[in-house]
């Protein structure tokens, strides 16, 4: 007999496992991204102060910085989708395996 409560419990457990493991990595990536952004801004300011960049170039690179950050946010979006895809497929797999067992 198919037990829906057990099925749901297993699904939740699978999703929790996936999200727990992957979330730690995503969180690490976000920390790295913020650290890299800090370093880029520090480097940019330093080059400008030392006169190795003109004001025009400093301002243009400051604008570019937004694009680099946008790219990093796109990478994070891919990571989040990867976790969502894995979790959704794990749920389907639990359901499929349990339904198959009942049908047999």
């Amino acid at each position, binding site marked *: *007999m198919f037990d829906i409560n057990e099925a749901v419990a297993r699904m939740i457990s699978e999703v929790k496992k996936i999200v727990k493991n992957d979330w730690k990595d995503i969180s690490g990536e976000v920390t790295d991204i913020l650290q890299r952004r800090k370093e880029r801004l520090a480097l940019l300011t330093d080059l400008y102060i030392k006169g190795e*960049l*003109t004001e025009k170039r400093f301002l243009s690179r400051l604008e570019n910085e937004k694009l*680099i950050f946008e790219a990093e946010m796109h990478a994070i979006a891919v990571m989040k*989708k990867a976790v969502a895809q894995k979790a959704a497929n794990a749920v389907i797999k639990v359901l499929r395996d349990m339904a198959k067992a009942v049908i047999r």
Partner: protein
Amino acid sequence: MKSSITCLKMRSIIFLFSAAILLTAASCAVRLLPDYDASLAEEIVEASLMIDRFCADMLEFSRSGTEERAYHNFAGAYVEIELALRSLYLKNSVRPLNRHSTRICEIALDLWQEYRDEHKEDGSISDGEIIINRRYFQDLFKSMLAAEEWKERAQ
């Protein structure tokens, strides 16, 4: 008592029916991202190395404000790198469910063209510009590669 057993049976039947539908649909699993492409990941690393080498060579073998740093000495390398970036953009843009990676490649291509045009217009490029450009591309490629590698984890 009898009605609760009937109700339970009904729930099981409905659930199994739903499961059967899901099983049919299960062959097409949930897809939010394209499959991981190892050759594309390799191409990202190669393009990244090309730009890194280009910047390192410029800093090492030419001096700012001299003829050595003139645009025409680097025009060929600019074109070669632009082609590598264009190839990455094109290959990413034709893959379904791939708008994030496509946008990262588009940003890289746009910035490369902007920096090339600056060098061309100014005739030269300062060490400071090379250093910041190099850093920007290193971080852009990190994002590009991370996005590709997480597609493998999604499978």
